[in-house]
């Protein structure tokens, strides 16, 4: 049988051409269908089936058109060609579904040879066969019932349509097959994804339990089995979770129990395993919602954290143990401090008794040997008391019970006091002890004077202790100043034995001594520096040392203080005023440090200096210069240790005629009275005090212009200072004598005078006062009335008598003011009758004292300006 009978039997050329065109169109449609289907298949597009249906529709339309227009026979050839092409496609495709399509294609091919009812039956039977084959082959679980029904319905529909239009059926089946093929691909892909997820689910190191909305456990992975001890079979489809403890643990420290209600963030909880043991886990529950937003399933996740919890517990135990140990140590330390404090208090009481009794003993008649013993006892007791006080202070700082009391402090005043006390305690060493407060240091700061004095005194006395000879120098300067606060640096520099480098680090440790041998030469508690360090830290600073063994040390410390205005009633010292402008001072001192300090103070006050090491050099200098007049306004000479005044070293200065009218100031550490030193205008005490130095120079020297313009007023008084101008007169202090036998009252008057800025001399009874008055003139005498040997009344009478009998030493009479506890008018009259001018009631108050002093000072100065009338008035009185 010929493959193409219709074409071969066709004799009409027009019909033949039509048949060839139809064949060509069929070829074209089939090729397009295969190619487009192949592309879609290659792209794994699920929706390809839809597009293939469209393709099929176009092809079918084309073929129906051909069949209608052309002859039925031509369709038959076309179908054969189509089948041939499709066979090729079948053999090259591995998809089993295509076999079904092959069988289906047989139906229309067979159809022209069967007719009538038989034809219909054959078609139905064959269709059913194909459907059955499809159901057998397409039996994978991923094909849902709906899909299968849909497939069957479409197939039947197409079969029925194919019954009428055989061609279309074949092509539509081809497309359906392709859709089935795509679904199969998708199915494989889903299978792979599912397998991967399952593997992941089972191997994750985390327990994963899926629960349905009603709480039934639907999934359960291998890690859950490991952690809970339950197998999947035991718990799947169960609504309870046997690992969740039914009751909350009594142990407050245990983690929260895991409950199904806990969702969201991670919580630490404890589960109960199948074997009864507990396991610490970190768990969370995650709800999974469906597309409507309702909870579809809940996934519980657990991680095993038992190892972490074990380490945490160990850490807590270790920390608790350490805290306990630390607390025990602290308690022990506190107990030790309290014990030391009470012990020190207990020790201090009897030592105070020893010190007090010993001072009383020293006042009783003793042999020389007994006196020496008693003095040794006194020294030792005071040392011991000092050590105990150090211990007490140290404990106060250590226990935090030391409270600072800041008050306005004049640092220059404070340092003057410290250096004076230190100079008295140099253990007979020939040391040059000096202090220099830089001009940058403010006049007044808020500080605790007791504690500040404690640090400075400790460091200065240490420097003195370890300096056999040379210098001890305290320097104070402002390091920085900001926002009303100033940072001060104190340097205590000595030329002592120094400290070896290896021993410097233990200096500031409590109870440490550099010398530890039994044969050590310096004693102490070893607390001084440690205490100084703590105090400096308490004052907001730090402390340190630099030293060269054998050459000396420099101890330094810094503190931060608030700058404040000086307290009312106490004007600041005029440290920054150029009071000595135009004045030239000759400085004669062999000590370089002393010279440096003197030059600083004088030049800072605007004065000029010329320095010499000794008086011989100075006289030699004068001899060489050979000038008639000298350009000097004052000479300041430092006394030499071991040499008395007047002595050979001072005599040349006194004898030099060119220096006769120039005031001579003596710088001396010893207590001297100017009355005992002829030719000396005033004594300037050592160590140098800035304020005293400047005021002494001011009070005693003449400015050059004044010397040239006005003649010097000379008096009969051998020590009277040359008076040139009223200004200098104003500066000249009142000479005051206090006659008082009572030590307490004497002290009161002395302190009042000091506070008011006056110097005074003291007599212990009336007789002494009279004798002193005979030697020297006093502007004012404060006279106690009841005194031993000679009462104040008798002493006043004697003084007034002297004034009448002998020419007065001064141009004006002495003012005598009674100090009396008797306030009756009778007593006052008695005072006036014996020649007194005024009276002050005892106890003397500061207010009355200053008012009286001011009143009489003005009177005395007025009288001095009008000497003759005043003298007359006084004499008449």
């Amino acid at each position, binding site marked *: 049988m010929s493959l193409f009978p219709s074409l071969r039997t066709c004799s009409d050329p027009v019909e033949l051409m039509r048949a060839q065109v139809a064949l060509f169109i069929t070829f074209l449609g089939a090729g397009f269908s295969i190619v487009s289907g192949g592309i879609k298949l290659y792209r794994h597009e699920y929706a390809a089936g839809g597009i293939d249906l469209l393709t099929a529709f176009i092809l079918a339309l084309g073929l129906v058109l051909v069949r209608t227009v052309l002859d039925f026979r031509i369709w038959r050839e076309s179908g054969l060609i189509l089948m041939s092409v499709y066979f090729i496609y079948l053999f090259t495709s591995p998809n089993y579904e295509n076999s079904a399509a092959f069988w289906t294609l047989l139906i229309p091919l067979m159809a022209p040879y069967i007719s009538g009812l038989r034809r219909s039956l054959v078609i139905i039977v064959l269709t059913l066969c194909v459907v059955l084959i499809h159901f057998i082959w397409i039996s994978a679980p991923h094909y849902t019932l709906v899909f299968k029904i849909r497939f069957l319905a479409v197939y039947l529909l197409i079969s029925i349509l194919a019954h009428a239009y055989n061609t279309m059926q074949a092509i539509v089946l081809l497309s359906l097959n392709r859709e089935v093929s795509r679904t199969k691909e998708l199915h494989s892909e889903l299978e792979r994804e599912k397998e991967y997820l399952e593997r992941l689910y089972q191997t994750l190191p985390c327990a994963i339990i899926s629960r349905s909305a009603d709480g039934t456990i639907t999934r359960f992975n291998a890690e859950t089995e490991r952690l809970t001890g339950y197998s999947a079979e035991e718990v799947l489809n169960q609504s309870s979770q046997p690992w969740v403890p039914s009751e909350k643990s009594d142990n407050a420290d245990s983690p929260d129990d895991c409950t199904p209600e806990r969702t969201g963030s991670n919580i630490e909880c404890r589960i109960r395993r199948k074997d009864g043991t507990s396991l610490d886990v970190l768990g969370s529950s995650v709800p999974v919602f469906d597309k409507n937003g309702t909870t579809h399933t809940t996934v519980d996740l657990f991680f095993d954290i038992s190892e972490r919890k074990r380490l945490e517990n160990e850490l807590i135990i270790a920390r608790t143990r350490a805290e306990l140990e630390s607390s025990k140590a602290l308690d022990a330390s506190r107990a030790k401090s309290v014990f030391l404090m009470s012990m020190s208090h207990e020790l*201090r*009481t009897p030592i*105070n*008794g020893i010190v*007090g009794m010993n*001072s*009383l003993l020293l*006042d009783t008649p003793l042999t020389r040997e007994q006196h020496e013993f008693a003095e040794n006892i006194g020294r030792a007791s005071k040392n011991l008391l000092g050590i105990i*006080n150090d211990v*007490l202070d140290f404990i106060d700082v250590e226990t935090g019970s030391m409270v600072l009391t800041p008050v306005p402090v004049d640092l220059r005043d404070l340092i003057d006091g410290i250096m004076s006390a230190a100079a008295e305690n140099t253990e007979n060493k020939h040391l040059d002890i000096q202090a220099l407060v830089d001009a940058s240091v403010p006049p007044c700061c808020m500080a605790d004077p007791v504690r500040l004095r404690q640090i400075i005194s400790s460091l200065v006395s240490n420097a003195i202790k370890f300096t056999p000879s040379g210098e001890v120098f305290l320097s104070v300067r402002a390091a920085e100043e900001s926002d009303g606060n100033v940072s001060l640096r104190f340097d205590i520099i000595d030329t002592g034995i120094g400290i070896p480098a290896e021993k410097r680090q233990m200096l500031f440790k409590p109870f440490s001594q550099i010398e530890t041998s039994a044969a050590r030469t310096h004693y102490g508690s070893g607390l001084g520096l440690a205490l100084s360090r703590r105090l400096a830290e308490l004052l907001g600073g730090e402390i340190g040392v630099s030293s060269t063994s054998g050459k000396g040390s420099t101890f330094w410390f810094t503190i931060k203080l608030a700058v404040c205005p000086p307290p009312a*009633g106490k004007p600041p010292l005029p440290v920054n005023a150029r009071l000595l402008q135009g004045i030239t001072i000759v400085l004669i001192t062999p000590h370089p440090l002393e010279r440096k300090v003197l030059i600083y103070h004088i030049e800072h006050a605007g004065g000029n200096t010329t320095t010499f090491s000794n008086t011989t050099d100075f006289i030699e200098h004068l001899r060489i210069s050979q000038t008639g007049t000298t350009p000097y306004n004052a000479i300041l000479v430092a006394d030499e240790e071991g040499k008395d005044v007047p002595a050979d070293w001072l005599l040349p200065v006194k004898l030099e005629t060119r220096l006769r009218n120039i005031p001579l100031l003596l710088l001396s550490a010893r207590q001297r009275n100017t009355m005992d030193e002829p030719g000396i205008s005033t004594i300037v005490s050592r160590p140098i005090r800035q304020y005293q130095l400047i005021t002494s120079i001011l009070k005693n020297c003449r400015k050059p212009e004044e010397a040239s313009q006005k003649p010097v007023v000379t008096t009969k008084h051998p020590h009277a200072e040359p008076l040139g101008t009223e200004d200098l007169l104003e500066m000249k202090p009142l000479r005051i004598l206090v006659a008082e*036998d*009572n*030590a*307490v*009252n004497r*002290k*009161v008057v002395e*302190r009042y005078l000091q*506070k008011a800025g006056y110097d005074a001399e003291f007599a212990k009874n009336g007789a002494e006062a009279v004798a002193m008055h005979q030697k020297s003139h006093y502007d004012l005498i404060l006279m106690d009335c*009841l005194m*031993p040997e000679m009462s104040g009344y008798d002493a006043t009478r004697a003084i007034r008598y002297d004034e009448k009998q002998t020419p007065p030493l001064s141009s004006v009479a002495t003012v005598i003011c009674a100090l009396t*506890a008797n306030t009756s008018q009778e007593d006052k009259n008695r005072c006036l009758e014996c020649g007194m001018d005024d009276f002050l009631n*005892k*106890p*003397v*108050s*500061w*207010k009355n004292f200053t008012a009286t002093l001011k009143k009489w000072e003005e009177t005395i100065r007025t009288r001095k300006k009008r000497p003759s009338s005043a003298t007359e008035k006084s004499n008449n009185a």
Partner: protein
Amino acid sequence: MPKSELPVLDLATALEAMDNDREMYGEILSMYLTSTISLFTEMETQLRENDTDGLIRSAHTLKSSSRTIGGLNLGASAEKLEHTVPSYSPDEILESISSLRSQFIKLCAALSPEGFPVPLQR
């Protein structure tokens, strides 16, 4: 105010007299305490030696210095002794000195809470 009602210590008045200068007061108090202890010994010696003038002077000193530091009661008792020494028997004087001593101790005790500890001065 009768003398018996005088306060043992009137610190406020004493401080006011000294321009409220506590430092100065402390300094003077220190001297007062030291000198008064030896003053009692001196008075006993004066009594033994029948030194009436000396006793009057010592009582005067005690009166004056006690009032200075605010010991009004002690000051009044000392004044009383100052005026009655010539008329008192030695036993009466000894008793007065003993009484002054105990008042002095009371004064010391009153100073401690005011921030002036006696005799434990640091």
